[in-house]
C-alpha cells in the first residue's frame, strides 16, 4: 500500500511542477490520438452509413465484418502496420516507421471499425422510413441524410468518444509502430509501461493520471456538446 500511496503523492507533485518531458509526452499523445480519431470519423462515418443504409448484396456480411473490427486487437493492427511500413515493406520507402505518423495510421486503423460499427448501429435504430418522411416533406436526399445524422447525434457522438477512448488507451500498436522513442514517439501509455518496467511507479502513476484526465477532458467536451444540443432543440 505504501508504494501506491507514495507513488500517488509523487505523481501529484510531478504533475504540479510539470516538467518539460511530461508536457511533450502529453502533447504528443493528444496530437496522435485526436488526429487518429478525426481520421477514423472521416472514414468510419461514411462507411458505417453505407453499411447501415445502402442496399447492396453482401451488406450483412459487411456489417458483420465491421462489427468484428470493433474488437481488433491493437497488437495485430500494430503488427500489420509495422510490416507495411518496414523498410523492405510495400510502403517502406516513405520511412514512416517509428514516427508519430505511423502511430496515427495504426490508431486510425483501430478506431475506424469502431466508428463504423457504432455509426451503423446508431443509424439503424432510427425509423427506417425517417429519410423517406423527410424527403416527403421536401428535403433533398442529402438534406434528409443530414437530418438523419442529426437525429442520431447522441449515439454518433458516443461513437466518437468510444473511438478516442480506444486509441488514447491502447499501448500495443503505439509501442510497435512508434518504438517509444524519447522525445519523438513516446506517448503516455508507452511511457507508463516503460516507467513501470523500470520500477518508477510514481512516474507511471503520474502518466496514468494524466491519461485519465485527458480522457475525461475530451469526453467531457463531447458530452457537453451532446447534451447541450438536446436541451436546445
Amino acid at each position, binding site marked *: 500500500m505504501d508504494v501506491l500511496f507514495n507513488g500517488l503523492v509523487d505523481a501529484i507533485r510531478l504533475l504540479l511542477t510539470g516538467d518539460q518531458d511530461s508536457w511533450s509526452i502529453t502533447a504528443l499523445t493528444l496530437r496522435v490520438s485526436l488526429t487518429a480519431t478525426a481520421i477514423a470519423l472521416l472514414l468510419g462515418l461514411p462507411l458505417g452509413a453505407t453499411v447501415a443504409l445502402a442496399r447492396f448484396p453482401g451488406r450483412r456480411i459487411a456489417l458483420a465484418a465491421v462489427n468484428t473490427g470493433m474488437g481488433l486487437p491493437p497488437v495485430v493492427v500494430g503488427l500489420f502496420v509495422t510490416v507495411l511500413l518496414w523498410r523492405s515493406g510495400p510502403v517502406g520507402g516513405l520511412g514512416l516507421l517509428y514516427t508519430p505518423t505511423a502511430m496515427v495510421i495504426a490508431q486510425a486503423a483501430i478506431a475506424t471499425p469502431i466508428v463504423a460499427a457504432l455509426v451503423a448501429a446508431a443509424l439503424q435504430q432510427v425509423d427506417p422510413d425517417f429519410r423517406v418522411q423527410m424527403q*416527403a416533406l421536401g*428535403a433533398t436526399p442529402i438534406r434528409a441524410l443530414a437530418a438523419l445524422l442529426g437525429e442520431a447525434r447522441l449515439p454518433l457522438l458516443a461513437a466518437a468518444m468510444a473511438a478516442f477512448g480506444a486509441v488514447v488507451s491502447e499501448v500495443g500498436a503505439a509501442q510497435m509502430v512508434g518504438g517509444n522513442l524519447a522525445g519523438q514517439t513516446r506517448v503516455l501509455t508507452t511511457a507508463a509501461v516503460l516507467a513501470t518496467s523500470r520500477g518508477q511507479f510514481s512516474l507511471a502513476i503520474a502518466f496514468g493520471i494524466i491519461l485519465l484526465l485527458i480522457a475525461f477532458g475530451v469526453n467531457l467536451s463531447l458530452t457537453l456538446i451532446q447534451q447541450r444540443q438536446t436541451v436546445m432543440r
Partner: protein
Amino acid sequence: MSGLSAGIGCRGLRVHAGRRELLSVPELHVAAGSTLAVLGPNGAGKSTLLRALGLLSSHRVSGEILLDGRPATRSLLRDAIVAVLQRPIMRRGTVAANVISGLRFRGVSRREARIRAWPWIEALGLGPLVGRDARSLSIGEAQRVSITRALAVGPRVLLLDEPFSGLDSTTRADLLADLRAALTGQPTATILVTHDRHEALALAEDTALLIDGRIRQHGPTAEVLDRPGDADTARLLGYTNLLPPALTGGTHTLVARPEHTQLVLAPSDGPADQAHDVRSVTGTLRRTVALGVATRVDVDTSAGSLTCLHPGDVLATELPPIGSDVRVRIRQARSLITADRDEPTETLPGPGDRQGTRGPAFDSEL
C-alpha cells in the same frame, strides 16, 4: 393555377420490384382543390402508387409524373408535394420544431416558418402541445402533428398514406373531421390512400379502386362506392354477400351488403315484394352472433354462405333454431354485369340510400 389540368397526375406510371410489376396506372389526374381516395385491400399497391407519385419509391418507377398537366422536374415536384406516411415519424425536438420542419426544408427562416405554421397549429388543435417533446406524444397526437406538419407547408399536392390507421375510433373521427375542415377551400390536390371506404366518403369527391396494382374503377365517390364492378371490388366496398345466378334465377351475379341482407323472421314480416329491388333466397341457419349494436346471422345456401345483419339485439326467441330452413330477404343488391361504369346497375338506390351523404362512419363496420 387555372384550367382543367392544374393538379397532380401521372401517365404510363409503372413500378417494378425486380421483374415483378407492382403497379400500372396508365393515367390519373387529381385536380387542384379536390381529393381523390385510392381505396384498395392490403397489398394492392396503394402505398406504392403514393410513393411513386411522391418520388419516394425505392423501386424502379417508369412513366411520367405530371404537375399541372406537364411532366415536372424532380425539384419542382419536391417543392410541390408533401406526403404523410402511415406511421407518424417525428424528429427529435418539440412539436413546434416538427411542424415547421417542412417549411425549413424549403429554405424558410425559422421565424417566418413559425408565423406561417401557426394558423395550422390552431386549426388542428395543437396549441397546447407546441412545447412538448415530439417523442412523448401518443400515436394519435403524433399523427395529428404529422398532418399539421404537412399542411403547414401549404403544399400544392398532399399525399396521405393511411394516416388514420392505428388510431382509435374517436381520435380517428376527430382527426378526420379536422382534416376535412382544413382541406376545404384549399387549392391543394389531395390523394388519400386507404382501405376504409368511410374515410373515402368523408374526405374525397372522387374514388379510385385499386386492386392488384391496377385501377379497376374510378369516379365520384358515392357512385364508385355503390357500384361494385366485380367480385373483388364488391368485397372491398362491403358487398360481401355474393348471389350467383343459380341462387336468384337471374342472369347476373348479384352482390349485397350484410346490412341489407336480413332473415324473414315471420311469414307476415312485411310485404314480401314491395319493390322490385327486393329479392329473397332460402337457406339453412348456421349460427347467430349477438354483436351488441347488431345481430349477425350466417345462413348457408346452395351457393355459399350469406351474412345477415339485423340492427339491434334480436331476441333469441325471435330467431329460428340453428339448422332450420330460413328465408333471407335482400335489398339493394347490385348486379355485377360488367366493370363498365356507364352500364346502369340493376337497381337504383332507394330513398334511404346514403348517396351523397358525407361524414365519418356512416354505418358500423361489422
